[in-house]
């Protein structure tokens, strides 16, 4: 094995990495000098095509400080860069003493953890719990409202909180260095990549506030780093280091997905790499099936099970912390809410009777409360709208009344008729006194179903107001056979329209603006007994004639709540659709991002305010995008040349070139393209994770063509490096004010308007 090395071991001094790069992968094929040593080879790596790093001669323990430095000289640049990043990330971090931009959201969510009130948000909880933790450590008590633009009172330790969250931004810089190293980039390329990460103004700006983006970026970086580290351990599968980096990658996948769902995109990159890797191993005839199966199992455990457990654990903690009733209750199932402290559902009278005022909760995932309001449908029947609404409101209340023609309900009578399975009822909307009604008119969105509206009044109505109560089951008493009277909270039931035979259903179809983007309620002709969206339960129940219920202790199962919350998050996320008529100067389209078409004003633009403008370092962004486009061209040219039998690469070099290119290009594609098909409103900061891959591609290409080139002289490389680094540093210095905060009139800052579309100036 030793004979194969082109560089003698131990010569990997300062500029030895280029040599490492060409040395890593060596083609296996059959034959070669060590054809005979099949078993020896199998023990090492089953022909993974990868050899380990050059074996370092074991170094003696350092005896002096100078020797220590000398032995660890490779870690000096990242340390210096980290120190620099501490300066950039924390310099004047408290300059703006107001709530900037989305601090209004995330600061508030952090406060909810400190107050332990249940809230609802579209993002998973990890990032916000870390905000809460930062607040806790900083001594914040959670009693600030975080209204956008408000000045922080003296007792709010916002600077400490910002500094703690800036740690994630600082961490990006050394990660960038070591990732580039693991990708076997030359020393100059590592410097360039790290400089780009250190000096991008958008990454800098977004890391300086109480936001989730710095965490998302940090965990994206750790995931890529873990992946590259793992890749380099492949020559010794199942070694402790191999396990460590595989598990590390899995954990950071769990973390990145628990901050924002956008983390799934970087997960896709890991997934792609893993599938390709397993496919290649499948083709390795030296590898016994048993070992191959172990590879599968190891990846399933570390890359699927571990992240899912991590993600679920973050929700478990979320539920454990937030055990008080709060603004997000209505998103959850009635049973979950009954378990929150400060909620009065447990005081509901147990059995529902005629004359009870109830709210009805849809039991589909993310379901809301049956709702009506005075506005009418502009289409179809033009009668009063019926929707599903996620917040508590007077308009959610319905009175259970007997059908027309039966003995009318007498509010003064003492005895109560209880509701049971099969009863025909009329549901009267309490504020408008209209009855829940359905007829043969197509529903506005789900046009195959019948429309549900509110019609008539206390004395007027028709048979289309009649609904049959059909019990499905009871969460306490079990199957339908055991259910006598309808209980609040626990009895699941369906409402069948007596005349049409259709079922009251609220799926996740959103009404247009005229319906206030609430959820459509329709009457489904198909009788699908397993459809959750046709299940309803009584949530709050008021009937002065009945005794108040007892505080019952029953737990809502975690998995059910977990899944329920996730579907609700998904539904709300999809509902973040921009109004096409409303100009939103903050939003931007994915196509605007790679060429930095727009920036984003993060706060008010008054002369006396400190102004922050989210804008990338143009050299970094444009360079990254240009190199992504160039990479496609380069790949095409190389493939065409190969087809014409030109030999441009040393053995193994092509695989390495392709590997780095794939990580960078596919990473970018997975991070960027999904935004193109997403219906929801998008902002420029959604591009920030993708930017990391475009930076990697820039480093990779410039490394391939300049720094690792065998044709160019050392002097040329020096000059190219100087120009690139100079450009990055120069533009950073030019635009630094946008991230550090502009005091005084913006007009005083000259020459920032490099593109006409940037709204930096008024």
């Amino acid at each position, binding site marked *: 094995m030793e004979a194969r090395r082109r560089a003698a071991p131990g010569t990997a001094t300062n500029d030895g990495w280029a040599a490492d790069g060409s040395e890593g992968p060596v083609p296996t*094929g*059959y*034959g*070669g000098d060590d054809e005979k040593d*099949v078993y020896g080879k199998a023990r090492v790596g089953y022909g993974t095509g990868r050899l380990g790093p050059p074996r370092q001669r074991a170094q003696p323990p350092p005896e002096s400080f100078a020797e220590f430095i000398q032995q660890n000289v490779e870690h000096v640049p990242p340390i210096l860069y980290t120190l620099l990043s501490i300066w950039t990330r924390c310099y004047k971090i408290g300059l703006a003493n107001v709530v900037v931009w989305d601090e209004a959201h995330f600061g508030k969510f952090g406060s909810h953890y400190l107050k332990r009130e249940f809230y609802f948000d579209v993002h998973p909880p990890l990032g916000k719990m870390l905000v809460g933790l930062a607040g806790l450590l900083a001594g914040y008590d959670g009693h600030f409202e975080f209204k956008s633009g408000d000045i922080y009172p003296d007792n709010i330790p916002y600077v400490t909180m910002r500094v703690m969250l800036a740690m994630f931004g600082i961490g990006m810089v050394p990660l960038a260095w070591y990732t580039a190293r693991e990708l076997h980039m030359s020393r100059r390329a590592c410097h360039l990549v790290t400089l780009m990460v250190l000096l991008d103004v958008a990454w800098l700006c977004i890391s300086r506030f109480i936001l989730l983006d710095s965490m998302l970026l940090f965990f994206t970086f750790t995931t890529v780093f873990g992946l590259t580290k793992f890749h380099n351990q492949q020559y010794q599968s199942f070694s402790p280091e191999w396990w460590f980096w595989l598990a590390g990658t899995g954990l950071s996948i769990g973390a990145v997905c628990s901050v924002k769902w956008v983390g799934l995109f970087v997960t896709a990159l890991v997934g792609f790499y893993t599938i390709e890797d397993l*496919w290649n191993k*499948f*083709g390795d*005839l*030296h590898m016994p099936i048993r070992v191959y199966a172990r590879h599968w199992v190891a990846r399933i455990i570390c890359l699927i099970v571990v992240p899912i457990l991590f993600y679920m654990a973050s929700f478990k903690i979320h539920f454990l912390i937030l055990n008080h009733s709060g603004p997000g209750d209505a998103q959850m199932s009635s049973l979950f809410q009954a378990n929150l402290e400060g909620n009065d559902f447990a005081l509901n009278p147990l059995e529902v009777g005629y004359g009870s005022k109830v709210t009805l909760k849809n039991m589909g995932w993310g379901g809301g409360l049956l709702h009506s309001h005075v*506005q009418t449908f*502009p289409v179809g029947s*033009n009668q009063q709208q019926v929707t599903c609404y996620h917040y508590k409101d007077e308009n959610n209340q319905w009175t259970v009344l007997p059908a027309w023609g039966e003995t009318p309900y007498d509010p003064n009578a003492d005895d109560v008729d209880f509701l049971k399975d099969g009863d025909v009822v009329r549901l009267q909307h309490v504020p408008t006194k209209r009855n829940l009604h359905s007829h043969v008119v197509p529903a506005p969105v789900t*046009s*195959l179903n019948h429309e549900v509206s509110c019609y008539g009044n206390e004395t007027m109505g028709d048979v289309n107001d009649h609904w049959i109560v059909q019990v499905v089951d009871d969460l306490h008493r079990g199957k339908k056979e055991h259910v006598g009277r309808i209980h609040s909270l626990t009895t699941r039931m369906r409402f069948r329209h007596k005349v049409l035979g259709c079922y009251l259903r609220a799926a996740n179809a959103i009404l247009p*603006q*005229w319906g206030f983007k609430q959820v459509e309620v329709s009457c489904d002709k198909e009788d699908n007994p397993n459809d959750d969206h046709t299940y309803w339960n009584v949530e709050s129940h008021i009937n002065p004639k009945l005794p108040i219920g007892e505080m019952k202790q029953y737990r809502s199962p975690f998995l059910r709540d977990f899944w329920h919350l996730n579907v609700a998050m998904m539904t709300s996320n999809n509902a973040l659709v921009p*109004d*096409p*008529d*409303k*100009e*939103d100067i903050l939003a931007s389209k994915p196509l605007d991002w790679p060429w930095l078409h727009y920036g984003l004003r993060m706060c008010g633009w008054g002369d006396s305010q400190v102004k922050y403008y989210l804008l990338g370092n143009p050299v970094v962004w444009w360079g990254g995008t240009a190199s992504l486009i160039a990479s496609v061209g380069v790949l095409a040219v190389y493939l*065409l040349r190969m*087809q*014409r*039998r030109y030999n441009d690469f040393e053995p193994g070099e092509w695989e390495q070139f392709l590997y780095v290119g794939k990580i960078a290009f596919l990473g970018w594609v997975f991070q960027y393209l999904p935004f193109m098909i997403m219906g929801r409103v998008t902002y420029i900061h959604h591009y920030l994770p993708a930017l990391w891959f475009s930076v990697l591609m820039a480093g990779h290409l410039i490394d391939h063509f300049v720094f690792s080139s065998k044709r160019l002289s050392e002097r040329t490389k020096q000059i190219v490096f100087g120009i690139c680094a100079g450009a990055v540093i120069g533009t950073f210095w030019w635009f630094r004010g946008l991230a550090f905060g502009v005091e005084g009139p913006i007009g005083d800052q000259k020459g920032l308007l490099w593109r006409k579309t940037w709204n930096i100036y008024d």
Partner: protein
Amino acid sequence: MSDFRARRPASPPSSAQPYGKLSSAPSQRFPPRPKDRLDADERKALATSGYPRQHHPLGGFKLSSGEVKLLILVVVLAAFVRLYKLSEPNSVVFDEVHFGKFASKYIKTRYYVDVHPPLAKLLITLVSVISGYDGNFDFKDIGKIYADVPYVMMRALPAVMGLAVVPLTYLTLRGLDCRATTALLGSVLVAFENSLITQSRLILLDSPLIFFTSLSTFCWVGFSNEDKAEPFTEQWWFWLTLTGLSLGAVVSCKWVGLFTIALVGLCTIRQLWLLLGDMRVPPRLFVKHFCARALCLIVLPITFYMAMFEIHFLILQNSGEGDGFMSSEFQHTLQGRGMADTFADVAIGSEVTLRHVNTQGGYLHSHPHNYPGGSQQQQITLYPHRDDNNNWIIRNALEEKNTSSTDLVYLTPGMTVRFDHISTNKRLHSHDVRPPISEVDFQNEVSGYGFEGFEGDANDNWIVEIESGDRKDPESKKRLRTLRTYFRLRHPLTGCYLFSHKVKLPEWGFEQQEVTCNKNAVKPNSLWVIETNSHPNLPPDAEKVNYRIPGFLAKFLELQRVMWDTNAGLTDRHVYDSRPLSWPFLKRGINFWVKDHRQIYLLGNPFIWWSGTAAVLAYAAVRGFLVIRAQRGYKDFLNTGVVKADQLCGFLFLGWALHYLPFFLMERQLFLHHYLPALYFSILLLAGVFEVVTGALRPRVRLQIAGAIAVVAILTFAYFSPLAYGSSWTRSKCMRAQWVKSWDFSW
């Protein structure tokens, strides 16, 4: 360890050569060489000059006289099933509503807009004109009895095209080097496929589409064979040009034809890629190959496609139902929509009409009806037609009434003006009241307000903001010029912009388009332009302007965009629509026509349909299995038999996939008949699989199997034929034919 060694073929030495370079040793298993196949030496000898060039048949199609007779028999049978009782039913069926109507429009030369390109509709029109149709039937509803319409001739065109697919199937399979038995089987299956029959017996576009799809495939196969024999011969150019033309035709029938282009495109790329790897081909020759294909397969289809639209525009010269979809410039080219020249300079006191730029909603309009809600003041809407109620007079808001002044005060940016509605004496007004439909906080209502003698209030004021002018008219950026200046109107008190969007008012607003004042207005929907303009003080010889007449290219591109938008907007559910996943399994058909207890219901021949799907799945499974085997070191792909089978089936599978999978990305409403081009390929693939599977059998046995399959197919066809012909059926047979619960024809 001994496992994998055993799998390696014994012959190649275990040297360090990669797989690809291993030359496969000739094996005894391969059949003896056919007589007309040459080995390398012979071919080399052939290439040297002076050697008599060996004749090869046109496109590689060599048919024996026996099979020609059989083919004629199949065609006659197919003609019978397609033309049988073509005049029944004698009323409008399904989409004949549309495509018959379009023929009437062509004859009447009235402009219309449809989501499909014109070729197939032009052909139908041609036939109907030749048969003496005068265009006076309105094709209003399904079931309307035809009167004075040569509908049989019009139906005959799709029927004949559907018929032509049968021999094309045969020839394509023969061109792909299949045996006559296979090709015969394929053509019989196509001939007796119920849905293809049903679809081709009516005035619909799918039959021409499938015809041109199969023609393109056929031509491509012919070209490939020529290319293998010898490039750049006359025959080679002939087939290449024909491929290009038929690709142009297929995409000129329906945009689905793009999938056929994708198929040919991918195959071309593969051809070129292999050519590039052929070191005997010098770069210059490669460039020649590349350019020839680019010319014939890209330029030619595009030219053909555009030519169809040129014909379309030449025929449709008069205004018609489709005007509303098009821009004002476009409408101006239609007779009956033209506009007289109008004065260019807009000044205080001008009488103007304002048109909304971004939607085709029309002109700022008011009429003596009030909003039922909100402020209950007079309605302001957008109205698409010319009308006196669109006329407004521009007044200066800040000065006293300047009636005496004779000099013109031009409208410049920043000027505050009012708009008086002439016929009702109201002013354009806005206030902090929510509009009737778009009841959101950033929208304000716009109304007509005022009465005789009322001076007006500040809510009547509007500030002119010029957005863009015309490049050729520099003045138009500095002041308001008719038709040339796009401007916005800002309401100074509330800061909102006069705005309109594609939202219709209900009946009380006569379904005209809503006009609002939007505080966060998106720019395109808040742009306005002055369309007509007159001023009492302007001399009659003052400068006049009119719309610039767009050239063909501008009209063509605009129509493409309108077609695209209309197509994307077809998202409503239809009772018989379906999603792509259900198609290969024939879950449900389409009800075409019901009358007098008879029904036409589009349903495939289940036997052929499901077998085709099975063939697709089988090929995918086997191919996947082979890939997995290859990864484990098995060298199946060095076996010429496998390679040949894979090339045949792979091509057809690709055709199927490209005509099917893209539908998953489409949001619009989809129907079973969108699967028919893919079905055609699945039938070809079925024949291909038959060819491969029966390869080792004796010809006689193979023929018997093919015969059995054909008989089952024909029996199934006969069983379901009443649904295709709309002929009478007994109730019990109908009920029994409901093999799948979701086939909803028997109710």
